């Protein structure tokens, strides 16, 4: 698997990226509805229905299907334990996206956690 390592890492990055785009669309679709969590079945059904007619939700769905397809290609090339650990790089993409696209505020604890994940992926890939 060694010679294919870069290709596999690139594909994992690609599936993580698709996952991040999927999450961004989903978050944006949900945010646009202004839902307050309540145990009220009529409200929950109404919420889900309103969500289903949002084009952004379907974009999010398309990206999650692409992500699954690439993931299956990865699994045929790489060990599960490697692929699963390396896939945690979506934490990095989501961190960057929420910081720079959604403009969320970041604590030092989150940067520390993201840094540890980066180090962990490097260790897992080197072995």
């Amino acid at each position, binding site marked *: 698997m060694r010679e*294919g390592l870069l*290709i596999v890492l690139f*594909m994992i990055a690609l599936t993580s990226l698709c996952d991040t785009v999927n999450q961004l669309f989903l978050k944006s679709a949900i945010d646009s509805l202004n839902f307050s*969590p309540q*145990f009220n079945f009529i409200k929950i059904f109404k919420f889900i229905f309103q969500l289903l007619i949002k084009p952004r939700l379907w974009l999010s769905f398309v990206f999650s299907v692409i992500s699954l*397809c690439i*993931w*299956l*290609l990865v*699994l*045929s*090339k790489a*060990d*599960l*334990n*490697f692929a*699963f*650990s390396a896939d*945690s790089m979506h*934490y990095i993409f989501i*961190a960057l996206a929420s910081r720079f696209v959604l403009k969320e*505020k*970041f*604590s030092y*604890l*989150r940067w*520390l*956690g*993201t*840094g*540890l*994940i*980066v*180090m*962990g*992926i*490097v*260790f*897992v*890939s*080197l*072995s």
Partner: protein
Amino acid sequence: MFKKKVTLKILLLLIVSDILETAIHFFFKKGALAESEFSVADFSSALVFLKAVFSSPFLWAGLLTVIVVFIIWSTVLSRIDLSVAVPIASFSYILVPVVSVIFLHEHISVLRWIGILLILMGVIFVSLSSKERTAQGK
């Protein structure tokens, strides 16, 4: 919004979702293993491969488990905070490698275990930071 502490029932649900989460990855890997090799340079061979994988019962078992895990997670998250749920749920970062070694006969070096532990710590820190944000009144 105030949320209750982690009860035994919630903890059991989280452990079940950990095990099922691990099962998802096992099923997907099994589905991907069953089929022929494809070449990265050849896009049409990738499509042939995917077509074969999508007819594998393992893949559909995996997708079904995804739905079950989603329902369990929605239940858990309506009871406790995400910053509490994620560290307990990231047990799967250990469980998946263990399952890979036992059932898929993969080899994991010491260096890789260190990497896995670093990722686990990182995930826990990231999820704890969402609690910090809530505590600041945001």
